[in-house]
């Protein structure tokens, strides 16, 4: 496979979906809190059905969802309401969410839409109780510093979280989601990954997006010159993006090769399946032996191509299998991979005979109940036909490692119509002007390095930290940057590595501790045990008392006197040079409850007394 993506005509774009960290959801006033399903307070179920458009046609993607009539179950919470239940009209568009999106649009230099109109985008996989996702186009035509074009920015509602198959949790439904779509302007796998990283940085720079697993998802659109647009959904790991692109390019190249070969061979597809159930009654494959029905189909001239590897771990047969699975079957067998899985050579011969297959042909069989078998064979035929035109237009999902599997057809763009229950929002110049552009995290990092003297890595950590704002406030109020950084970043990281639940510690509490250190009430040496105490639910006062019990200057003086007296010989031997060593002993004893400077002062005086003494 060639690495010359330019020659292959690679065109790629990405869509980034990022949850916004608003107080309320996009179209109702519920909090944007993720819940455990055990906390659910109720459950209901619904059927969804695709609505035909006035042209009488059903969307291909919707139609495929409808193959099986499915009942969708939903869990409700005390943090969800009738809007998520699809039992109340939506509230007006969340203005806080819109402000965040408009801010990002401004960062990207985009043209805001003069009047934002909310649309309903049909989605009947159950992840939206209404059967559609509400989405609004907010801004158009932007460009990133690196040159990548941002085509559109939309504000959408997040879908319900799938617990399993047709069972959903409503806590996530309706959380505001920004969708940033680049134009298909990238031509190398690395460019795609870099652009994604850059957009991620911009999003985080606002300080108003959700963090953590699943709060950001990348979709990648890829095609090569003779290939077709394929959309790969839900790539969550930024570092995998380039690899996904590479593998998809590989897949398209391979599919085009197969096309060429098929045409060359004059391949064709037999449309009538053959019932071969009886051939496998004594088969060692348990699946085949116990199947109510086994149907076979002959693909003329496909020999070797069904088993041809098109991506690591994926063959043309895998694609056919994905299509067949939509009918509820577990998968398929094809003669390119047989004998295997308990099927003997002899059985393969009989199978080929039964279907009058030559060595140029490939036979595919599926085993299940009759209805499922017939459905699956039709799907296999459909996918086999697509092989003649190369790369099908598809939505695909990422598999572990970066290969992908078929998910559903690309949805038609036309399945959108206005959400009449939500009034349009006019975006005024005043509003746009009032939006402050946040400092980009990349700039923050530079500033931290330059102004605060942090190292690049620490500056990066601090800039991306959720505690950045508190950190900056502390500094603005006079705390030394190094101390503030230790409190808000390094020490917490150390404690976190020890398994201490540092996320329980409140920014305000840390700030209080910092001021106590600043005023000398507590020694900075006690920072780590104090933070640990805070993580156990103590308030700052309590934490200080526990971690660094109050030691008065008199007590310090007493301790110093004792230690100095005990070690007077040593002091006399070393003179002032003894200070360092003795300081350590004293500090250990006062356990960080006293500022080192104070101890140092008292110690120096004591030592000078000893040295002056006879």
């Amino acid at each position, binding site marked *: 496979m060639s690495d010359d993506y330019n020659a292959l005509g690679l065109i790629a774009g990405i869509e980034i979906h990022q949850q916004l960290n608003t107080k309320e959801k996009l179209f109702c006033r519920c909090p944007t809190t993720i819940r455990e399903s055990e906390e659910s307070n109720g459950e209901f*179920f619904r059927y*969804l059905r695709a*609505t035909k458009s006035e042209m009488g046609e059903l969307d291909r993607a919707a139609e495929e969802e409808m193959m099986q009539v499915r009942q969708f179950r939903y869990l409700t919470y005390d943090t969800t309401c009738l809007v998520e239940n699809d039992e109340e009209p939506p509230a007006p568009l969340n203005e806080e969410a819109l402000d965040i999106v408009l801010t990002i649009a401004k960062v990207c230099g985009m043209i805001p839409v003069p009047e*934002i109109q909310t649309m309903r*985008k049909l989605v009947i996989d159950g992840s939206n109780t209404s059967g*559609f996702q509400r*989405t609004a186009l907010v801004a158009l035509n932007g460009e990133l510093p690196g040159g990548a074009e941002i085509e559109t920015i939309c504000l959408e509602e997040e879908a319900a979280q799938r617990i399993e198959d047709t069972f959903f949790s409503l806590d996530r439904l309706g959380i505001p989601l920004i969708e940033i779509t680049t134009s298909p302007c990238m031509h190398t796998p690395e460019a795609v990954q870099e652009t994604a990283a850059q957009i991620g940085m911009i999003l985080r720079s606002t300080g108003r997006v959700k963090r953590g697993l699943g709060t950001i998802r990348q979709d990648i659109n890829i095609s090569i010159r003779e290939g077709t647009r394929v959309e790969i959904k839900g790539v969550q790991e930024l570092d995998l993006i380039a690899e996904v692109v590479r593998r998809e390019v590989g897949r398209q190249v391979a599919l085009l090769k197969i096309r060429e070969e098929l045409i060359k061979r004059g391949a064709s597809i037999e449309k009538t399946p053959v019932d071969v159930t009886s051939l496998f009654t004594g088969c060692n494959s348990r699946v085949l032996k116990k199947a109510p029905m086994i149907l076979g189909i002959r693909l003329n001239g496909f020999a070797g191509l069904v088993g041809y590897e098109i991506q690591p771990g994926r063959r043309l047969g895998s694609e056919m299998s994905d299509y067949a699975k939509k009918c509820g079957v577990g998968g398929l067998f094809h003669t390119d991979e047989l004998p295997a899985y308990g099927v003997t050579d002899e059985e393969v011969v009989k199978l080929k005979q039964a279907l009058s297959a030559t060595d140029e042909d490939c036979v595919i069989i599926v085993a299940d109940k009759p209805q499922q078998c017939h459905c699956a064979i039709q799907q296999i035929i459909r996918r086999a036909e697509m092989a003649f035109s190369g790369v099908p237009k598809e939505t695909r999902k990422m598999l572990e490692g970066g290969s992908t599997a078929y998910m559903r057809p690309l949805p038609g763009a036309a399945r959108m119509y206005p959400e009449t229950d939500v009034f349009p929002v006019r975006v005024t110049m005043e509003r746009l002007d009032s939006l402050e552009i946040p400092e980009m995290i990349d700039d923050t990092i530079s500033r931290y390095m330059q102004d605060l003297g942090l190292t690049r890595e620490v500056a990066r950590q601090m800039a991306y930290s959720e505690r950045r704002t508190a950190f900056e406030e502390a500094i603005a109020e006079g705390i030394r940057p190094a101390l503030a950084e230790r409190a808000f970043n390094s020490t917490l990281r150390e404690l976190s590595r020890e398994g201490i639940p540092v996320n329980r510690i409140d920014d305000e509490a840390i700030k209080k501790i910092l001021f106590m250190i600043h005023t000398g009430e507590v020694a900075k040496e006690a920072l780590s045990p104090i933070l640990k105490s805070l993580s156990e639910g103590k308030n700052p006062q309590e934490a200080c008392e526990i971690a660094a019990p109050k030691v008065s200057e008199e007590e310090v003086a007493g301790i110093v006197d004792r230690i100095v007296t005990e070690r007077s010989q040593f002091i006399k031997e070393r003179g002032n040079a003894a200070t360092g060593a003795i300081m350590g002993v004293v500090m250990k004893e006062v356990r960080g409850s006293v500022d080192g400077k104070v101890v140092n002062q008292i110690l120096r005086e004591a030592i000078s007394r000893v040295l002056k003494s006879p």
Partner: protein
Amino acid sequence: MSKKPETGDIIRCTLEGCSLEGAYIASRDGMATIKLTSGYNIGVPEDTLETIATSELAEPQVVEITQDVNLPLISIVSTGGTIASKIDYRTGAVTSQFKTSDILNAIPGLVTLARFRAVQLCNILSENMTPSIWQQLARAIHDEIKAGARGIVVTHGTDTMAYSAAAVSFMLKTPVPVVFVGSQRSADRPSSDNVMNGMCAAKTALSELGEVVVVMHGSTSDDACAIHRGTRVRKMHTSRRDAFQTIGSDFLGTVSYPSLTVKLSPSVVKRDTSELILKDHLEEKCGIVWYYPGMSVEILSAWKGYKGIVLAGTGLGHAGTDIISRIKEMNDSGTLFVMTSQCLKGRVCDRVYDTGRDLLNAGVIEGEDMLPEVTLVKLMWVLGNSKSPQEARELMKENLAGEMTRRSSV
């Protein structure tokens, strides 16, 4: 700007120097809605538009549904509402549909249950219903039953469906089921309750019932519809699927979904119990007065000259002492007053407290456990069909169509 574009025309607009193409949809307050090729609508200043090409409407694809002539006939009388609708994804418009084929297309399962004939009576939002449309509706249903329908399904907006069901209950004695149905979620959305409600309504129309009922979701899940008597049902929630509730007694039955098994309670009126009789007179000069503390006596005068007034009083059926003398005056001049309660549940009893007794002395009739809305409709019918004021008073105290129960079950 060139001449104003028409819906569907392809236009170009310029935003901050950037040019966009899309289909023109409509304008409002100087802002034009444009549908981009991505399917998104956006609003742009109307004066930036430039028409590129005029609309070419594609012929809608008509799917003809074949009906099975061996199945029993149901007539669907439509008055409005969104039990069937179509979306034009090109323009985003959603339109209500009432032709037989439209309804059968929207609810494909129907053809397996019965043969259908659709009668479009009107197409209005149900808050615009009037007594005269109720009369047309009763007549249309009457004619359909006479023409041999085995059951009637009336599609109706949910806002005033309960009023209409009550009105038909009084005007029409029916040997077959007359089933009102609507949807709380419009038919354009995949989650609409129209399919389940429609299927359950059709199945009820074929059942052994012989009265006027409302069939709507029984819970928030798509598990079963409840069958409510037309004179005991009330919309009790603005937006939930299960908004319709029978007040003061049990509902008449259920239709499970998707099995469509109809279960009827023993208290239903059975098919063919009544002869088909239409009595469609209504006295429209009737109203509801909802009492509130401090209500001025003068407010009542707004209904001066009315033939009948339903009072929605407090508690057991009371109103401020001030207004009782005015009620007596109006009663003496020929206005018939019936007392119901704002509580909605429970029975009016004006024999317990002084105010109640004064109201009775002023000529007010106790509305027993009738719903205020149903009482209004009954009053219109009774006044339209009585030969004397005395007969009207007596009829108001009688149970005519299941609107009143003699005992308050728990």
